[in-house]
């Protein structure tokens, strides 16, 4: 295969794997409903908690933003990390392996499609949440906000691509593992309260997950007055760390895919179903 046709195949694969998420997922209306409705239920419950304890209105905004960003985390868990396990169960994984294309291109397609799909859901959650609970946000620095948001997504989906290789070895535990990473990550990443409340040490440890720093930085840029005393690190420092994390996770995803695929082949786990 020449260099040019190799790249053509790579990008065609990316496009082909992103397609079902960009177009196909929008066709299943019930999923659109559930993916917006379920996080909104959780957001609404937490908003009422803050109302019950008479929290400042900015905290309602923290919850709405956290709820929207949680859609990305759930997408990374269930549609990135666990995806190769589902593909194994439905018999697609062996087709991926025999196809004359890069497995990184498949993961990248999944990630780009997932980002697009989830951005629509997250935007709906923010819009409905902000209107429903009258949340007002003050955008202080649009370029930095956009930079933080996009870098968070790159780092987060890089982490998802890395986890998906690891999940290649899993059987039923893939489902349980993803399930396990929901509430604890909501807690340590501060989805519903500023992460600084957990203490500097826990917040620093939780920064391994890009969404922790991304969320803290976005809150600083959207609710500047309230976050002055509640921020973990400055938004600029968090952005710099996120850039580093993006590069690191994409590199690790590439290495992990190659290592775990070889291991799964050797142990005969690529085609095992109903485990």
């Amino acid at each position, binding site marked *: 295969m020449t260099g040019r046709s190799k790249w053509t195949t790579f990008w065609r694969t990316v496009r082909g794997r992103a397609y079902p998420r960009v177009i196909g997922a929008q066709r*299943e209306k*019930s*999923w659109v*409903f*559930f993916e917006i*409705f*379920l996080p909104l*239920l*959780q957001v*609404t*419950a*937490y908003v*009422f*908690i*803050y*109302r*019950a*304890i*008479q*929290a*400042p209105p900015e*905290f309602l905004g923290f919850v709405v933003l956290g709820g929207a960003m949680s859609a990305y985390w759930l997408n990374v868990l269930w549609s990135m990390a666990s995806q190769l396990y589902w593909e194994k*169960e*439905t018999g697609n994984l062996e087709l991926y392996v025999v196809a004359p294309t890069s497995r990184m291109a498949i993961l990248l397609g999944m990630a780009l499609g997932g980002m697009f799909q989830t951005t629509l859901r997250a935007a709906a959650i923010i819009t409905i949440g902000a209107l429903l609970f009258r949340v007002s946000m003050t955008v202080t620095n649009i370029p930095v906000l956009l930079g933080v948001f996009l870098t968070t997504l790159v780092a987060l989906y890089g982490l998802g691509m890395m986890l998906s290789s690891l999940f290649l070895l899993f*059987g*039923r*535990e893939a489902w*349980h593992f993803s*399930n*396990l990473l*929901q*509430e*604890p990550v*909501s*807690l340590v990443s501060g*989805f*519903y*309260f*500023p992460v600084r*409340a*957990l203490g500097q040490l826990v917040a620093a440890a939780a920064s391994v997950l890009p969404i922790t720093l991304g969320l803290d930085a976005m809150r600083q840029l959207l609710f500047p007055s309230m976050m002055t005393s509640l921020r973990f690190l400055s938004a600029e420092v968090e952005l710099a760390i996120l850039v580093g994390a993006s590069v690191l996770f994409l590199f690790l995803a590439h290495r992990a895919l190659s290592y775990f695929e070889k291991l799964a082949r050797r142990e005969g786990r690529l085609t095992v179903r*109903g485990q």
Partner: protein
Amino acid sequence: MRSGRGLEEAVRSFRVATWLGWQIESNWADPFVFAIYSLVKPLAGALILVFMYAVIAKGGLASPLFPGVFVGNVVFIYVPAVLAGISWTIIDDREHYGMLKYVYTAPVSVFAYLVGRGVAKAAVATVAVVITLLLGAFALRVPIGLGVLDGPLAAGALVCGCVMLAFFGILLGGVTLVTARHNYGVGEAVAGGLYLLCGVVFPLDTLPSWLGIVGRAIPITYWIEAFRRALLGTRTPAFEGLSNGVLLAVIVGSTIVLAGLAVVVFRIAERRARARGLLDMQTMY
């Protein structure tokens, strides 16, 4: 003679399904990992509330609202476990293991089988509830203790609540039998809705009045109130006027109504699923 054999079949189905459910729940990991898994999720859920209160509420965890909210949140662990767990059994057996059709071709009582599968989830939930309550009592100073514990009320609420949730799960299982792609969200959506409407983590009066009325019409609201009274010895202002007897009567009465409704809905769904060939449906979702 016939009913005796039916009872025997139901007991056998229940026993085997409970064992099977336990194996499916637990044998994917070694016991230590499984124990951690069973505890981390509910503990994290409780700690989210703890930090929300610690950051904002006047007096932090000493806020008078916190004990009721904590107990409500802990008891609610049973709801997704049993309710969504039973309906999930239909999806798991039909789509994942492809064995629902064999359950129907075997001499098995389907109701007993579904409840049996739910028991394993309830057992795991019970461990999580007990550990989280102990954490609350000893680490967070939630005033739960033997001095205030109303044993009969707690036992009555636990038994009635689990039966009520089992029938609710069977009702959802009926819906799941005749639905395809969106069945994954049904259990979660119902559990999420109940979490919001039943005043689990905030007083019911915080909801807009029309939503509060909906919350008061759901028996799980009364079940959670019964647990709050049994464990904390205090009454939520919204239910101040209800005696414990009335509270239990509401729970028992609504369980009976729900049981009738669940059996009818499940039987109708089952007939439709057979007629439309849905018992061995594979949607690949």
